[in-house]
């Protein structure tokens, strides 16, 4: 009986464990981007449902690698799905030829660089990148 309880507890921890990444994650765009960007819009961009800014420019979407803790937090909080599901979602859209925007996967240091250099870019980065965030505008904070 005791073993069963332990097993149940372990299974509970496995299934319902919360994301433990403590750093804040920032969704950022280029500082020249003046669009009003709501959390819903961020979600639509990362679900490939919206592929253009208000002026019609194609959005350059940056993702972090699947195993990145910041991606885990972003996916769970914004998309309500796991990073693996999110990556499978992009792959599925590629193979069924419905993809609008091909997402670019880069390490967070490069995401900051690209977003600061490209006016049409959007990405998200962990708090540890805050010192390198010149040229970007924070549009969403995920605590």
């Amino acid at each position, binding site marked *: 009986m005791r073993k069963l309880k332990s097993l149940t507890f372990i299974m509970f921890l496995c*299934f319902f464990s919360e994301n433990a990444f403590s750093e804040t994650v920032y969704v950022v765009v280029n500082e020249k981007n003046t669009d009003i960007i709501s959390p819903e819009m961020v979600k639509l961009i990362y679900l490939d449902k919206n592929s253009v800014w208000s002026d019609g420019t194609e959005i350059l979407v940056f993702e972090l690698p699947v195993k990145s803790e910041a991606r885990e937090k972003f996916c769970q909080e914004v998309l309500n799905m796991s990073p693996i599901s999110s990556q499978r979602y992009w792959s599925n859209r590629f193979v069924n030829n419905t993809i609008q925007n091909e997402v670019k996967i880069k390490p967070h240091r490069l995401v900051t660089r690209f977003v600061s250099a490209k006016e049409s870019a959007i990405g998200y980065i962990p708090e540890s990148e805050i010192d390198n965030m010149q040229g970007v505008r924070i549009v969403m904070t995920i605590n």
Partner: protein
Amino acid sequence: MVEVREIFNPSDYMNRIKFVVSNCLITMLILSSFNASANTVEELEKRIQQLENLVEKLLSEASVGTELDVKNESDDEDINRSISDLTLELEEQHYLIEELSKKDEYRMKVAGYADVEYKGSDTPGVSEEFRMHHLSLFFTRKFDNKFKFFSEIEYEDAPKFDGVNDGSGDLDEASGTIFVEAVNFDWNYSQALNVRVGRFFSPAGIWSEDHYPPFVATQERPMHIFRIFPQFVDGVSGYGRQFLTDSISVDYNIFLGNGESSISGKKDLNSNKATGFRGRIQLPIWDEFNLGFTLYNDNEDSANGNADKFAYGYHLEARYHNISVQGEYALANLEFSDEVLDYDREGYYAQFKYHLNDWDLGYRYDYYDENNLGKNSVKRNSIFVNFHLNEAITLKGEYHRNQYRNSSVDDVGFYTFSISTYLGN
């Protein structure tokens, strides 16, 4: 690099300077050796990371300093020159990354998927088997921001074609299928207006496009899929999406094609073209919520005895956190020159899926009636479990049980275990 200049001021100690200079020179040496071989964005990214790590290391080590207090102006100059070189090198790497990213975006890309199955059935006399089901290759290319190309070649059941070596052109052995499932060009004018020409999967409902084994819950598709709306269209389509509010959008896909026929891709068997339309609205309910409908008309359906075929369907797709539901309904009305032969073909399914960490568990109810002239309908109950080993590989187990309306046919159960993988990046 501004920080670099601030830290290395003229008051640094002699041995600290020597240390930094020597490290900078070593860094430059490492970089120049890399330069000869790096030719991908990934390599350049790694190189930049190395550069940044080295700079950080140098800065931290240099800032520790030593006890010596001898200044040397010429060493300072060397330091500044080395740092300047290093800065230039970093800027060059960033420039190269930009250039290579552009090249990378516009080069031809190869992706694919594959799956292997182990199938069995409780039907007496039916043996269990391994099936090398699919190996599909995608060749795609984006020419610029407006034009792109997409193709898919499918190898089904490990095809083998072996010719007779007598000059006759006859086949000694032939098995499996090689099938060009998609080959099309896209012109993307805007989010609301795009044109596709070539062969593409019918934009009808959900499963018709969204059917690839690594990304669907079961290897076995719902029974009516590809039987009411055609599997693919050889023709042209216009599609796009328009936002009505910040979170409500509608998308459309209107298409014109040859229609179904036994000869695919070369010529149409009749002068009547098939037309279709799919409309969909996306609502801000739960995490995702899409409702849609499809219409299809072919006045002379060569694949069904030149019937005048009209089909319609509707679908729902929704997700709330870990729970996904999807369902489709479709009905085709086929009319012949002899009214006695007219019939309806109908099918629908409803699927529920629960996602738990790397697992998907689910159930699907499925109904299909090939024609309403007799007792031909089949009901199918399916349960499935998927385990996503990672973002590319999925292991599946599924069990289906068919119940036939015709009481003279026994119910049948069958199962499939499979591994499927996506081969793209």
